[in-house]
């Protein structure tokens, strides 16, 4: 049983930081950087929780996990029960424990954050999920009464998987359609192995398959079947669209199509999904060993790309970002990890031209130095050029990581889905309902590029609304 601790005793326990692979070692391998807490560390960390009567952390969680309860169970060493509590609200805890921006969510809302350090909720979630998985899972497969209703989930990324998890448990038949040959969407093609090992995604996907979710890979909805065909011909009663924001944005500067310029999507897909770093890989990648690699952008994807380049031997590997450190959208942990791995950061610079040789290969970039002006719509101070302050940098390989636009494939064949000027699908943020009957949407295809957990939250809200729609028939 857990020790009885006074408030003062709890406050005295220092926060347990995540054990990491040595920065030098890890900068040359693809193994996971974060090693995970030990059971002892997890229990001690959980004991820091004050078990607030009104737990603000839960309000900070986009899927409303009963954090106080699962942390209490960890302190009590009841790890399996803790996993069950998490899984009531989050079917992908091993993923979320790794990639959620906890500092802005649950941990940011922890009462300890002001005077102390917040309880390491993310580390604990990961610990519990890993504990459960490594012990072959405690998930009791309950008998579910089938409703006979069928739902098509388009996209096997975080939104689709979360939606499928809730629907299958509600007794609906669920088929998830995935365009690629592997399941997980951005979790497998986007997020690198060293941050989210693929076997973890696979284990969480396999659990859904065990519950009865059907998966169809290589199925590009919009091409092989339209939304209307899924509803009318294939006999689905509802469709959830969670296809993500999948069309890479480029800089719009001269030289962007030179050989040696990748979108972050292509660069990361070649490495993560196609494993071009493996000795027997069939999918090529330009050789990065001792090459000068530049990554444009300051988000998590930019950090993933630059740290990946580093692992493939890039030296130097540098982030070029047009605002300052303070505005960088990447998680603090990712920036910290990147710096420790020897990544260079050039801020307040914006590429204005990519330079190439006569064979069309990238040789460098011309940058414009920027300064910060007034805040823009995002609340961040807008970067503006310092006239005349330009410079050139030699670059062998560049990766553009400045975001994505919605993929047009679904819209082309479903013009009655209302969309915004940016091409995202219009859907009610609470219910995921679109302008088209029986069609729901959520995740990046609705919000534009956001986070894994926000997409999962949208998938779950849509699942609740789909259940209601299928029960009542009321649109």
């Amino acid at each position, binding site marked *: 049983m857990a020790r009885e601790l006074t408030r003062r005793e709890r406050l005295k326990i220092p926060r347990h930081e995540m054990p990491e692979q040595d920065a030098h070692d890890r900068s040359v391998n693809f193994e996971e950087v974060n090693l995970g807490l030990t059971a002892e560390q997890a229990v001690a960390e959980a004991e820091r929780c004050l078990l607030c009567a009104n737990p603000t952390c839960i309000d900070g969680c986009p899927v409303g996990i009963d954090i106080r309860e699962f942390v209490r169970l960890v302190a009590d060493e009841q790890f399996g029960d803790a996993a069950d509590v998490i899984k009531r609200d989050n079917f992908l805890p091993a993923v979320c424990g790794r990639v959620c921006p906890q500092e802005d969510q649950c941990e940011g809302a922890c009462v300890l954050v002001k005077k102390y350090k917040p309880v390491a909720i993310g580390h604990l979630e990961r610990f519990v999920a890993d504990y459960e998985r490594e012990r072959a899972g405690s998930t009791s497969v309950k008998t579910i009464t089938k409703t006979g209703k069928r739902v098509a989930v388009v996209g096997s990324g975080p939104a689709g998987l979360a939606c499928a998890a809730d629907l299958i448990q509600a007794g609906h038949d669920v088929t998830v359609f995935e365009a690629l040959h592997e399941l997980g969407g951005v979790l497998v093609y986007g997020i690198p192995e060293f941050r989210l090992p693929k076997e973890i995604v696979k284990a969480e996907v396999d659990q859904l398959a065990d519950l009865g979710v059907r998966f169809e890979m290589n199925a590009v909805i919009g091409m092989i079947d339209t939304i209307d065909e899924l509803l009318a011909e294939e006999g689905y009663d509802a469709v959830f669209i969670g296809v993500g924001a999948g069309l890479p944005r480029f800089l719009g500067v001269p030289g962007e199509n030179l050989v040696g310029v990748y979108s972050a999507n292509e660069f990361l897909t*070649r490495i993560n999904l196609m494993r071009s770093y493996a000795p027997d890989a069939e999918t090529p990648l330009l050789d990065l060993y001792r090459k000068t690699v530049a990554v444009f952008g300051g988000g998590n994807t930019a950090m993933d790309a630059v740290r990946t380049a580093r692992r493939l031997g890039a030296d130097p590997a540098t982030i070029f970002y047009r605002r300052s450190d303070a505005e960088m959208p990447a998680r603090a942990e990712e920036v910290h990890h990147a710096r420790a791995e020897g990544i260079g950061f050039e801020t307040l610079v914006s590429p204005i031209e990519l330079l190439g040789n006569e064979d069309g290969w990238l040789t460098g970039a011309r940058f414009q130095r920027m300064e910060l002006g007034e805040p823009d719509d995002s609340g961040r101070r807008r970067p503006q050029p310092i006239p005349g302050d330009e410079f050139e940098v030699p670059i062998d390989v560049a990766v553009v990581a400045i975001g994505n636009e919605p*993929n047009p494939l679904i819209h082309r064949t479903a013009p009655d889905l209302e969309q915004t000027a940016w091409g995202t699908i219009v859907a009610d943020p609470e219910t995921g309902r679109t302008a088209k009957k029986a069609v729901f949407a959520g995740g990046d295809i609705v919000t534009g590029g956001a986070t894994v957990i926000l997409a999962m939250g949208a998938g779950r809200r849509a699942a609740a609304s789909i259940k209601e729609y299928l029960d009542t028939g009321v649109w």
Partner: protein
Amino acid sequence: MDGPQPGGELMNRILETRVLAPEVKYFRIEAPKVARKRKAGQFVIIRVTGTGERIPLTIMDSNPDDGWISLIVQGVGKTTRTLNELETGDSVHDLAGPLGMPSEIHEYGRAVVIGGGVGTAIAYPTAVALAEAGNDVVSIIGGRSREFVLLEDEMRAVCTEVYPTTDDGSYGYHGFVTDKLAELIADGPSIDHVIAVGPVPMMQAVAEVTRPHGIDTVVSLNPIMVDGTGMCGGCRVSVGDETKFACVDGPDFDAHQVDFELLARRNRTYSAFEYYRNEEFTEEHIHVDPVGSS
């Protein structure tokens, strides 16, 4: 490491193969849904093995009733050469499609369909569709030598005139497809639409032949692709100074607007890697015992 396989059934089974020319092979593959949905000009992405790369291949023909599509594959790199080792009864690991925008088919009047080498297999479905739309379809099908002139009989079945050409004069017209095209333009009757599919220099040359005459000309581009759904942007091409993604905006584009130099350069990105892989493939297939699989 793959996800759960739907139903565990054997997918994408090869129903028939035929060697058409050295390193050029015809495949008929079971793909019922793709067969029903595909239109002329569209392609599929194939992964031959569970560790293989994703390659785009334009669909040559299909039979929606019998549920198959056909492809013609030229063994140029390790992946295509590995694919060409497969026989009837084997299956490809992954097949996704149909992808890309279908070719635009209108009643143009007199349309010339030009295929260079295996480009003829890609041009063929467009010739069929143009004929069905009521066009007077003329085809020029070129090859290095006689054995590389493909699908002549199939073309004759849908075209009013078919002109095989060979670079070495071993068959048909002695010269390039563009030489024959220039002759047709000079001799009349006038040509209203041209579609050309083949190696980049050939398509570029066709564009230059038709440009001064203002003849509407379309090419089907073959840039390097990974996902084929717009996600990676690797297949970007410059068309009229705008960046387009061949997989979702194409693969057909206005030949007079395409930056062919850029396309050719980008297609050479991995030539060093391909060279190495090709050597490896050749070695494996020369030294390894006959049953050894790669």
